[in-house]
């Protein structure tokens, strides 16, 4: 019951719309970002994830940040990675926790202010115990 109430408050708005309003004037466009997640995860406690952004990573044109958003986790913003021209490339791997099957979104903000996104659906067999259920 508690969980239902909690989730209903979280998943009302589509990811792109919410984030677009909160962080920039423009909505993120699809493209340039590639988010890799398994289609099926046995255990939501640790799901390998990789995000890659096409960018020359030069002083004039680079990825400033990549944010990872969850549709169902109690904390929607899972992580924000800050990069710069010193990175040389924009490709980050980590392991995430997922409170159930959901769509995960990655949004990259470029040095020119434009935003690009990709999302991936993950079927989670055993949810991470992040929402008390």
């Amino acid at each position: 019951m508690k969980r239902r109430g909690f989730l209903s408050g979280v998943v009302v708005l589509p990811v792109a719309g919410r984030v677009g309003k909160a962080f920039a004037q423009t909505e993120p466009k699809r493209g340039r970002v590639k988010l890799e997640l398994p289609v099926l995860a046995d255990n939501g406690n640790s799901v390998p994830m990789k995000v890659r952004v096409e960018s020359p990573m030069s002083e004039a044109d680079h990825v400033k940040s990549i944010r990872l958003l969850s549709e169902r986790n109690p904390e929607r913003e899972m992580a924000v990675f800050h990069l710069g021209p010193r990175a040389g490339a924009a490709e980050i791997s980590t392991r995430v926790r997922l409170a159930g099957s959901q769509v995960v979104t990655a949004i990259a903000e470029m040095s020119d202010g434009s935003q690009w996104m990709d999302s991936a659906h993950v079927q989670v067999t055993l949810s991470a115990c992040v929402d008390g259920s």
Partner: protein
Amino acid sequence: MVARIRVPQDAKRGDVIRIAVLVQHPMETGYRLDADGKKVPKNVIRSLVCRYNGVEVFRAQLSPGIAANPFLEFPTIAAESGELEFTWVDDAGVRGSAKQAIAVA
């Protein structure tokens, strides 16, 4: 808190190399119950920074949405030989750091 850092052994100047770090930390979500049925307070690493010879090259803001013993792999340009220093802080205010030498040919 213990961390393991992986850097390539054969980096050449100008190469884009991949750095991996794994920090030992439970990343408590705040929803888990202990043996007595009480909630274990939330405690996750919020911020992790990597400096390459003193210059910040990577920074991450984390949340309970990152798995326990957070693992991160990211690229950086092998600029010169020296040291990578990682520092992080969790919700309890506990700070940790780890260093790794890097040799660039």
